[in-house]
């Protein structure tokens, strides 16, 4: 953002223009990119800095700016040691991040491989169908899901009951209708909806990465008698490592800030016993329901640090080997 106001004296960029005066031509690119920076400074960077500031204060916005009290790291020590709801929401967030996130990749990878190898004519249609949930309004679709998951008459329970009639399934499916509003089921329900929404997105990412693998490699592997599984294991997986790293990173970042699906599926309440309340929801409630902006900002930054830590860990586990 620090635009150089001095003429370009050194030859850092020996390029098209060699004039040493500022004129419209040399100013033009700065003008063209400036809207982004202005918007980012006002509505991106400033809010971030201000929320850091807020997180060290106790403040109820109704009392006006003058009523801000500096409290040091008290907000942080409070949420880390005393705020049971924060702990619970973190646990919920982590639980759902894993239960909805891991299967996304375990399904998307083989699915993308299969779509890559087969489905000649109908591939685009099938890919499109799997991708569809990703583009639709999470609010609208979560509302529909809460209809489908209703206890007495929901389609989900009706389907389970129907499958229960079949001898293959009846040993593990419950006989009673499941009350998805009960705490022990809420997280499963939310995780399923999140899985449903993002599995197609990951499939598309993997599929597009597979398309960059030279066909010769598959042909050579086939010539050498490699089975499909061996091709997947020894050709696709190693070459897809960068994309797996990238897609997993996106999942971690997205899942840890889960908000809309649990918010709608639990009617904004977090569900019975707050079983479906995520950390982002906790932040929202702390700020806009309880009116405690300082604590809420501390929650935001604690969550941010968790995301940064998990991304770093993921980088250690998955990202490193490719760059040697």
């Amino acid at each position: 953002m620090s635009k150089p106001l001095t003429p370009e004296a050194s030859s850092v960029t020996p390029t098209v223009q060699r004039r040493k005066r500022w004129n419209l031509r040399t100013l033009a690119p700065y003008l063209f990119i400036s809207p982004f920076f202005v918007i980012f400074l006002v509505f991106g960077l400033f809010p971030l800095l201000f929320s850091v500031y807020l997180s060290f204060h106790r403040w109820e916005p109704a009392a006006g700016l003058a009523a801000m009290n500096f409290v040091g790291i008290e907000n942080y020590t409070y949420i880390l040691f005393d705020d049971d709801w924060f702990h619970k929401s973190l646990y919920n967030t982590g639980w759902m991040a894993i239960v909805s996130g891991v299967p996304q990749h375990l399904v998307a990878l083989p699915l993308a491989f299969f779509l890559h190898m087969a489905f000649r004519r109908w591939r685009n249609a099938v890919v499109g169908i799997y991708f569809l949930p990703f583009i639709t309004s999470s609010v609208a679709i979560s509302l529909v899901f809460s209809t489908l998951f209703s206890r007495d008459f929901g389609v989900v329970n009706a389907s389970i009951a129907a499958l229960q009639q079949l001898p293959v399934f009846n040993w593990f499916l419950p006989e009673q209708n499941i009350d998805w509003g009960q705490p022990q089921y809420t997280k499963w329900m939310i995780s399923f909806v999140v899985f449903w929404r993002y599995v197609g997105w990951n499939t598309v990412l993997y599929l597009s990465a597979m398309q960059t693998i030279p066909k010769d490699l598959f042909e050579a592997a086939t010539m050498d008698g490699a089975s499909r599984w061996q091709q997947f294991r020894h050709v696709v997986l190693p070459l897809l490592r960068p994309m797996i790293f990238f897609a997993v990173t996106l999942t971690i970042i997205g899942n840890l800030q889960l908000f809309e699906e649990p918010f709608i599926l639990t009617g904004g309440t977090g569900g019975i016993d707050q079983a479906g309340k995520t950390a982002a929801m906790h932040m929202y409630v702390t700020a806009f329901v309880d009116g405690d902006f300082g604590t809420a900002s501390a929650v935001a930054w604690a969550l941010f640090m968790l995301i940064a830590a998990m991304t770093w860990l993921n980088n250690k586990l998955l990202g490193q080997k490719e760059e040697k």
Partner: protein
Amino acid sequence: MSATLALQAPRRGNGTSFNASQFIAYAIVLSGAVLMLAPFYFMFIFATHSDREILSLPPPIWFGNHFDDNLKLLLERLPHWWNNLGWSLYIALAVTAANLLLCSLAGYAFAMYEFRYKKQLFVFVMGTMLLPSFVGMIPTALIMSWLGWMNEPKALIVPAACGALGIFMMRQYIASAIPRDLLDAARIDGCSEFGIYFRIILPLIGPALGTLGLVTFIASWNNFMGPLIVMRDMDMYTVPLALRSLQGTGQTPWGAICAGSSIAVLPLLVMFVMASRRLIEGLTAGAVKA
């Protein structure tokens, strides 16, 4: 551009015999596809049934004839529904127009000009994509109320008017599709710098604008957290916010919820069917740049 992406011609030479394991694989993939579509199907079906029919066992699996009643109920519960739709449309169109203009302008600068700190500035722009949106959520609400923008569409339009992903997409496309000689020729002919952008670049980047437009429109149309924070009055709600307010007020009107959701989702489905490839390319543009 990176986006030759997915969906190219199928591979040949996989053997055409159809064995049992392949059959099972196809069956699994297709039943997965059914699972992906089922919620949409029931959404449309339920939109045409009364609550009593929806709450019967087994649930209806084909269209009924109560869509009018559901719509009436929806309008009863959400008297500003048409306003809500209008605001959603207005905001999404304004955000899209602003992004097409500002992102292509910035992308053009990054693709075609040499200037000091260009690399650093570009890395900075890309880096802003890493910031999680929820961190700025609380202060954003404060800023909007200080600016007096609460309940104003501009609180949703201005902050979203130019995004890093759009700049990235535009830069990629312009750098690959437009020869620099063209610009020099225009300069020699005395065209101004903005004139070059407006009269030469803009008409040539239609496909990229289309992709970015779709992606931006959909993101704005679906946006929930933004309006949740800045829109206080029901007549200023956007569609997702209005739908959400149907929850938890006494008896839940399932049919009306499904009717409203259908209205909210249908335009996206139509867009997707018409331009799925372009849309997927746009959405994955940042991912597949390697």
